[in-house]
């Protein structure tokens, strides 16, 4: 009985937060269109996006050997309140990201982000689109902070700092308060 109840709660949360994710990405699209940016599309992570991420395995300059299929499946299962986004430039996948609220919901974590490897073709930068999505979703959840977890190296860490994020060594993340 308890198991059924937990399952029902999980399904209910998945649906409720799924609607919020869709609304957040819709609001992000509206922002892009208001700025005449029509080539960039922001969607949730679909099987089409996951399949497209397989092409990144062909890169010689890719920094990580992440398996987005496996990690997305696991992340989705564990975190119904998650945020996720696939960033497309016309028909090319240029970035993937997943994050989730902290335990009490005071901050929204950006757990993973990966841009399409640069040796697979030119693409626009993705950071402004990633931050746009997280900004909107964090306000929808009324979180106080966005946290970018585990910057991969000092260059990436410094890059995030340019956008107003501050590094916390204990916890290995950068944060920015939401005002």
């Amino acid at each position, binding site marked *: 009985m308890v198991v059924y109840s937990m399952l029902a709660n999980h399904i209910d949360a998945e649906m409720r937060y799924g609607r919020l994710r869709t609304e957040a990405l819709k609001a992000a699209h509206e922002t892009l269109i208001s700025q005449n940016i029509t080539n960039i599309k922001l969607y949730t992570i679909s099987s089409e996006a996951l399949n497209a991420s397989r092409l990144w395995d062909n890169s010689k300059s890719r920094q990580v050997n992440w398996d987005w299929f496996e990690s997305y499946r696991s992340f989705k299962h564990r975190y119904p309140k998650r945020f996720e986004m696939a960033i497309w430039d016309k028909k090319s996948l240029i970035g993937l990201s997943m994050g989730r609220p902290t335990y009490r919901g005071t901050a929204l974590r950006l757990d993973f982000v990966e841009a399409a490897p640069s040796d697979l073709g030119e693409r626009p*930068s993705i950071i*402004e689109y990633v*931050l*746009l999505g997280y900004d909107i979703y964090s306000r929808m959840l009324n979180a106080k902070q966005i946290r970018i977890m*585990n910057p991969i190296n000092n*260059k990436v860490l410094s*890059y995030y700092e340019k956008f107003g994020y501050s590094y916390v060594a204990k916890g290995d993340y950068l944060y920015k308060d*939401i005002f």
Partner: protein
Amino acid sequence: MSDKIINIQKAKQDKRQKTGWSAEEIKERAAAEFDKNRKISQETPEPENLVSGDMDGFLKEKGSKDNDEEC
């Protein structure tokens, strides 16, 4: 940042915690933040192959941490 500005921001944040953001406010703030971030992005070259996160660590974890508010 001066103490006065920090206090104003703190007061605004405290108010937000009680009332939340309206859809209109969210869109306005999103547009403003996007403008700001886009300018920075255009002025600062993105590191080659922007990546962050610890996916291997996540896949090894069995469950979520009970309290990661202050991590």
